[in-house]
């Protein structure tokens, strides 16, 4: 029986049940989590945005001042400078002992040069040759630039490789075989171990002298493989950390893939079998389309986790050697607490937030359901 909606008593009852009562319980349930998120995530983030416009230091006798976008300019400031080679009196190119053309010292442009105020305090990030002239890319904060590049390299390698590897593992363990749970447990185990512990263990594995990896490669190649100081060499350090990070979290994403695989109805596989699909066709037409939403989730989660790369760096290399493993979050912590430059660290956090948010939105847009 329906009540007359205009009857005051009826309205009271529906209002009470729909808005006040259920809503109050809803808020009560969500309350503790919402409170904690507000205090430990939202509030600090608002603080970070505010501090990034000041010169706040961790401990300082001086009062805090508003500095506008100076922190952002300090981190992101870039400049391009093209220099002609030096010529001698006859107009011939001056060459150094190795025969390469000589260029004027950069110092002359970046220090106390009133003609180039925009380059003041900048340092060379990298340079490239164009004909005889040489173009220098200058950065106000070279270390931060390296950190951004390293972070992007890390994300671009880890996201597809980790997701792909996790999918392969999930497909392998999604079979009804005796003892399959043992394999699930083994693959998942690194996820349960603290990343700090894993990083410490892998420092031994990567050790330059008697590390497990060097010994293993040496044994497999009968001593032909030279010993490599994996974490001490600028050309291998980031790769070593990437490999270890993929190994550590692959089990987590495997489990997410597995849950996605198990939501696909078995009758779809039977229907495909009756139509005579090959294994690849089954994957192409049944499994992969069924994993769409899982794939989007995994891609976004891995990307966000990869951007937050910190613990491995902190434990294994401390950003070195030669800044080859600097990352954005490591820089934020290093600056905020190591150098007690809270405003600088906050600025890095805000920049990272903007980067991750834009990429997540882009991924969502690219993977949207097209009708």
């Amino acid at each position, binding site marked *: 029986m329906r009540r007359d909606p205009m009857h005051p008593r009826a309205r009271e009852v529906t209002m009470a049940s729909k808005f006040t009562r259920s809503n109050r319980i809803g808020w009560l349930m969500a309350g503790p989590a919402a409170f904690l998120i507000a205090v430990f995530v939202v509030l600090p983030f608002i603080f970070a945005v505010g501090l990034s416009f000041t010169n706040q230091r961790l401990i300082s006798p001086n009062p805090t001042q508003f500095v506008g976008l100076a922190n952002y300019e300090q981190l992101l400031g870039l400049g391009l400078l093209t220099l002609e080679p030096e010529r001698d009196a006859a107009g011939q190119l001056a060459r150094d002992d190795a025969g390469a053309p000589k260029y004027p010292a950069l110092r002359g442009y970046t220090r106390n040069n009133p003609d180039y105020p925009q380059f003041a305090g900048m340092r060379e990030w990298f340079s490239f040759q164009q004909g005889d002239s040489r173009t220098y890319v200058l950065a106000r904060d070279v270390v931060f630039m390296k950190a951004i590049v390293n972070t992007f390299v890390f994300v671009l390698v880890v996201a597809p490789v980790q997701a792909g590897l996790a999918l392969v593992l999930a497909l392998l363990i999604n079979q009804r075989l005796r003892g399959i749970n043992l394999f699930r447990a083994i693959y998942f185990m690194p996820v349960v171990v603290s990343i700090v512990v894993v990083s410490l263990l892998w420092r031994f594995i990567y050790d330059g002298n008697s590390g497990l990896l060097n010994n293993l490669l040496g044994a497999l190649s009968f001593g032909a493989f030279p010993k490599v100081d994996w974490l001490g060499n600028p050309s291998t350090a980031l790769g070593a950390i990437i490999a270890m990070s993929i190994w550590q979290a692959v089990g987590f994403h495997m489990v997410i893939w597995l849950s996605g695989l198990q939501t696909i109805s078995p*009758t779809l596989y*039977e*229907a*495909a*079998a*009756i139509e*005579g699909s090959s294994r690849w066709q089954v994957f192409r*037409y049944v499994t992969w389309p069924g994993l769409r939403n899982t794939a989007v989730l995994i891609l976004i989660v891995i990307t966000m986790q990869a951007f937050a790369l910190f613990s491995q760096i902190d434990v294994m290399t401390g950003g070195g050697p030669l800044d080859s493993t600097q990352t954005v979050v490591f820089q934020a912590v290093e600056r905020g607490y190591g150098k007690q430059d809270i405003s600088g660290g906050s600025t890095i956090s805000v920049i990272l937030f903007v980067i991750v948010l834009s990429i997540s939105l882009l991924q969502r847009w690219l993977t949207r359901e097209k009708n």
Partner: protein
Amino acid sequence: MARVSLAGIKKTYGSTEVIKGVDIDIADGEFVVFVGPSGCGKSTLLRMIAGLEDISGGTLTIGDRVVNDLPPKDRSIAMVFQSYAIFPHMTVRENLAFGLTIAKAPKAEKEAKVAEAARILQMEHLLDRRPSQLSGGQRQRVAIGRAIVRHPGVFLFDEPLSNLDAALRVDMRMELAKLHADLGATMIYVTHDQVEAMTLADKIVVLNAGVVQQVGSPLELYHKPANLFVAGFIGSPKMNFLKARVDAVDATGVKLSSPDIGSLVLPKPGVDARVGDELTLGVRPHHLAAGPGADLHGKVVLVERLGNETLTVIGTPSGQQIVAALPGDIDITPGADVGLVPQAAKASLFLPSGLAA
């Protein structure tokens, strides 16, 4: 088109035998229904014919090939599942053409076959929709369409109407019957619904606990059930079973008596029973009439008025409940005394072993 023959088909899981040696011959173009309660092995049997389950023993022949070890696609079969099993991310057109896509058939062939299937099932207007935009009946139609596109020798249906609502089920049932008439293909249909079995089948196979109980035309099963199980399973409402003692036997019939029915003569020649035997008398609710000269008396417990008939539950003096299908406008209320006259000629008689006498 193909005939199908099952000879001594068995299925075992470990030491448990779920299909215990099944022999069935299905002629070309026949509509055969496997019916039985849940867990009787009918679906397993169908999946063995499809090739989705291994055959543990016996020989399965489709057409004139033994197909025991052939993969499903080489068996010349198509299957329609209870849950439709249509691919959610594909349009109806892509779903229909799936088998051809897999086989990398040319585009023109695909289009022609899809158009033909859509025409047969009258769903040309649905071709560009996605499954999520279809009703349950339309989805099942897509699944049937996908089967038609394969041009199989044998269509296999695994409870295809169970997920549909009652009204739609009746419509689809008629469409399936029409489809069978149009295509003339061999069809094997699994259901637990004996109404579907009765209406669709040329031949019904009643299964229980992995054993074939009886094979025959719907009316054969209805009128001459081979045993108590078939008698109870086929026909709605269920057949009434009454204990009765043999008072006399001769070449023309049997004279029975019991506290409930008094005394009754069944004109059944050649019954293998002796005086004093305890037999089971089976009387269908529709073979009981209220009226004078009744042998069977009881109190009305429940009255269900369906309009065309009135299903009446009657409690007998011995405490048993009997269902009678009485005329729709009969004046009867719970608590009233009623007398019933069974049509002795249409009654069944079962030996203590459960087999029909």
